[in-house]
C-alpha cells in the first residue's frame, strides 16, 4: 500500500511541478490567430490567474516550497505552507474516495475510470482467460513432442517477435477491409452504449489480437517448464510405472510447471486494468488504455493519477494472488 501511495504521490507532484499550460486550463492558444477578438496580454494574464484559482491550482503544491531568490546570493530558503496546499487537499479527497474531476471535461475521475473499465476488463479478462486456457492446452500438447512441435514453436516465436501495433493493424486491414476480407465489422458499426455488450461482434478482432499477443510468451514458458519437469526423476518413475504421458502431464507435471509461470500470469492482472493501449487505440475502443494515453497526452492529471492509483492497486492485488497461488501449488512455499 505504501508503494502505491508513494507512486501516486510522485505522479501527482511531478505532474503539477511546472506551470500548467493554457490548454490544460481550458484557455485558447495565445499564439494563434483563429480567435475572434484577441485578448490583450494583460487580460490573458488575469484570465490565467482566475482559471488557476477556480481549478484550485493557485495554492502552493506541497507542505513546503522553496522561496525563489532572484540574486542567487543568499542561501536557499524554504517556506512552510501549512495544510492549505494542493497535495494535502488531494490526499484528503482520495482518502474520502474522491479522485477529483477531469481537467478536460469536468466529469468525476471515478466515473470516467469506471466507464473505461467496463469496456476494458471484460475484453482483457476474456483475452487473458482464453490465452491461458489455450496456452495450457498447447503447452501440454507440445510437451508430448508431436511432429508439429517445431513449426508450432517457430510460429509462436515469430508471433512473439511481431510488434503488437503491426499485429493489430495487420488484422484490421486484412479481416475488416472491403478491399481484402470483409469478415469483421468496423468500430462505427458497433451499437452505441457503454461497456462490451453493445460492442458485441466488433470485439472479436481485438480479442483475437490480444490472445495472439499474450499466447506465445505463456506457451513457450509453460512448454519449457513442462519439458523440464518431464525430465525430472519423479516423471521418469511415473512413466516406468506405466503412466501415459498425458496422465503424467495432467496429474503431476503441470502443477509443478505452473510455478515458474505464475509471475507471468500475475502480471496479466494489472494489464487487465490498464488495458492494452495499442489495441484500444488501433481499434478505437473507449477503454482504460486509450483513456490513460489520451489523459497523458492532454495532461489531464486527475485522470492520470487516478489511473496510476488503480493500476498500482491491481498490481498489489496481483502480487498477493501470486503469493497465494504459489502456496497452493507448492505447500513448501512459506
Amino acid at each position, binding site marked *: 500500500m505504501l508503494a502505491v501511495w508513494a507512486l501516486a504521490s510522485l505522479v501527482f507532484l511531478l505532474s503539477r511541478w511546472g506551470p500548467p499550460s493554457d490548454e490544460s486550463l481550458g484557455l485558447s492558444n495565445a*499564439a494563434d490567430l483563429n480567435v475572434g477578438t484577441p485578448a490583450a496580454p494583460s487580460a490573458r494574464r488575469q484570465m490565467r490567474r482566475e482559471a488557476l484559482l477556480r481549478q484550485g491550482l493557485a495554492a502552493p503544491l506541497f507542505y513546503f516550497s522553496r522561496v525563489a531568490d532572484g540574486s542567487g546570493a543568499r542561501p536557499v530558503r524554504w517556506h512552510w505552507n501549512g495544510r492549505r496546499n494542493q497535495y494535502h487537499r488531494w490526499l484528503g479527497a482520495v482518502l474520502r474516495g474522491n479522485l477529483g474531476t477531469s481537467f478536460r471535461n469536468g466529469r468525476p475521475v471515478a466515473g470516467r475510470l469506471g466507464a473505461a473499465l467496463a469496456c476494458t476488463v471484460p475484453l482483457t479478462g476474456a483475452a487473458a482467460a482464453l490465452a491461458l486456457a489455450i496456452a495450457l492446452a498447447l503447452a501440454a500438447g507440445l510437451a508430448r513432442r508431436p511432429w508439429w512441435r517445431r513449426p508450432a514453436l517457430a510460429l509462436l516465436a515469430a508471433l512473439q517477435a511481431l510488434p503488437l501495433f503491426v499485429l493489430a493493424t495487420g488484422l484490421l486491414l486484412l479481416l475488416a477491409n472491403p478491399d481484402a476480407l470483409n469478415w469483421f465489422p468496423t468500430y462505427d458499426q458497433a451499437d452505441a452504449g457503454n461497456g462490451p455488450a453493445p460492442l458485441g461482434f466488433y470485439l472479436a478482432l481485438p480479442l483475437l489480437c490480444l490472445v495472439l499477443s499474450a499466447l506465445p510468451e505463456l506457451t513457450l514458458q509453460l512448454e519449457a517448464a513442462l519439458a523440464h519437469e518431464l525430465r525430472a526423476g519423479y516423471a521418469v518413475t511415473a512413466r516406468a510405472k506405466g503412466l501415459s504421458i498425458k496422465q503424467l502431464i495432467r496429474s503431476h507435471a503441470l502443477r509443478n510447471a505452473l510455478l515458474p509461470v505464475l509471475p507471468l500470469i500475475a502480471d496479466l492482472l494489472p494489464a487487465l486494468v490498464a488495458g492494452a493501449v495499442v489495441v484500444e487505440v488501433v481499434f478505437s475502443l473507449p477503454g482504460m488504455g486509450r483513456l490513460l494515453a489520451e489523459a497523458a497526452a492532454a495532461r489531464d492529471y486527475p485522470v492520470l493519477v487516478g489511473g496510476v492509483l488503480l493500476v498500482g492497486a491491481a498490481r498489489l492485488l496481483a502480487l498477493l494472488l501470486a503469493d497465494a497461488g504459489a502456496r497452493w501449488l507448492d505447500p513448501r512455499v512459506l
Partner: protein
Amino acid sequence: MRTPLLISLLAALLASCSEHSVAPNQPVRILWAHDPENLDPLVLPNPNASDANNLLHLSLLQVDYSTQRHAPALADSLPRVRLSGDSLTLITYRLRPAATWDDGRPVLARDVDATLKLMQGPGLPNEDARAQFSFIREFRPDPTDPRRFTLVCQGQAPEFAQASGDFFILPEASFDPQGSLRAYRLAALVDRPATAPPDSVLAAVARRYNQADPGQHPERISGCGPYTLARWEKDHRLQFRRKPHWWADALRPAPFVLRAQPRQLDFVVIPNEANATLALRRGTVDVYPQVPVREFRRLQASAAARQQLAFYTSLSYDVVTAGFNTRRPALADRLTRQALSLLFDAHALLRATQQGMGQRTVGLVRPTDARNYADSLPLLSYNTGRAAALLRRAGWHRLGTEPTAGWARPGPGSAPQRLALLVRYRAGETAFETIGLQFRAAAARLGIAVELRPTETGSFTPALHAGDFDLYIRLLKGNPFIFNFAPILHSRAVGEGNLTGFGTPASDRLIEAVAAAASPVLKARLLRKFQVMMREEMPLVPLFFRPNCLVANRRLSHLYPGGLKPGYAAAAITWVTPAVAAAP
C-alpha cells in the same frame, strides 16, 4: 441446434459484407477523431465542441459557408456600427421576430444581456470568453423594441462588427429565471476583480448554471438551434436529431446559416486513421473531414474508392511556420534570420509532407486572398550559397575549413557568439520532423550545428513561452475574417502569444494600423507593407499553407467544402436521389 446457429452467423456475415443502400432521409454520419469532451457553450475547449454547439445554439452572426463570410443568424440583419468619440463603438442589433426558444417563448434582447453577463460572471468556467468579449462594456436595450439593443464596445476596431455577434445566445430563463442579473451593469462585471468579496446573487446564478452541468448535459440549457442532442456515448458516438418544428422553418427565403437539412446527424468518434478509412470505404461513415494527406492520396488512387467517394481539397487558413527566438543574441539581427530562412527548402517540403497539396506563401496572408496578399514579393528559395554570404554580412565567419567547423562572430563582451541552433517542434508530428531534418541537413552543409528536440505536447507551449528554443516549427492557425497580428508579433505580447520576442516601434505601429484600418483599400495597402516588413525582419518563416482534405460519399451534396474549419457545412448536407447522382 447447430444448423440455425450457422445460418444466422452466415446471414450476419453476409449482411456485414453487403452494400448499404441509401435513403434520402437517412442520417448523415460524420467522422470525428476526438470526442468533444465538453459541450458547455461557455467553454468550447476544442473545434468539435464548437461544431456541436453550432447545431444546438445560435449566435447573432454565424459563418455562411457558401460565401465564407459572417451572415445574420439570430440577428435579422448585419449590425449597424457607429463610432462614438475616439474610443467607443456602438453596435446595434435587432433579433429576428420569429426566433423562439423550444418552449415557445420569444428570443429577446434580455436573453442577450443575460448571456453577456453570464460570460463575465464569477465562479464559472468562462475565463476564455471573459477575456475575448471584455471589449463589450455595456448593453443598452431599446425601450421601444424588446428585440433591439446596442452593444457599447471599448475601442474602435473594424473586427468588432463581426466579433460582437460571435457568441451563443442562451435562454435567460434556464440559468436566471428571476432575472436577477438585470440589476447588474455589464461593465461592473467586466471590471470585477477576482479578489472581490463574494456576491450572493452572482454566486446563485453560477451555482444554478454549474449544477445544470451543460458540459455533459447540453439539453438542460436548451438552445434555439435546429438540433437537439439525442445520444452521447462518450468516445464513441454523438447523435443530433433535427427539431420537428423549428422556428426558422417558417422563414422565406431561408437564409443559408439557418438551413438544417439532415433529419439526423451522427458523429462517430474514430481516432485511428486506418480504422477511419475502413469505415469510409465500407460506407458506414459518410463524411471524413480533415483527412491526412497520405490517406487522401491513397484513397484517391483506388479505383473502387473513386467510384464510391467524392474528393474535395481546399486551402486551409493554417500556415506551417518556423519562428526564431529573436531574444537570443545570435538571432537578434535580421541578416542572420534572413540567412537561416534560406535553408528551408519549402518547395520540396511541401511535396514531401503534403504530397504537393497546399500552397507556398510569402507571408501570413493566404495566397488566394488576391486583395491583401503581397504578390510582389518572391517566394523564398532554398539557397545555401546566398545564406552563407548573408551570414558573412551579418559578421559571422567560419571557424575552420573542415565541413563541421561552426560559425562565430565577436560578441558585445569578450566572449564570441557561436551559431548553433536548438529546434523545437511537437513530438509525433512527422511533417515538422521532416522540416527539422531538412533544415538540419541544409545547416550541416554550412557547418551550422542544429539540435532537433521534439517536445511532448504538454511541454511544447510552455517551453516556447519560456523562450527555451532558438527555432520552432509549428502550425499557426489563422482565420479569414480578422487581420490582427498583435497577439503574435506585437512587442506588448512578448511572454504571451509573441513567442519570437520580436517587436520594433515601427512594426508595432504598422500592426496597430493594420488592425485599425477601416477601409478595405487601406487595409490591403497596409497588409502588403506588413508582409514586406516581415520578409525584411524575418522573425517568422511562413513555409506553406496546409490543404484541407475532405472525402465524402458521392451521394451527398451541398457540403460546401472550404478552407474554414470544419471544412464543410454539416447542417446544409443533403442526400441526392440515385437519378440525380447519376446525372453529370
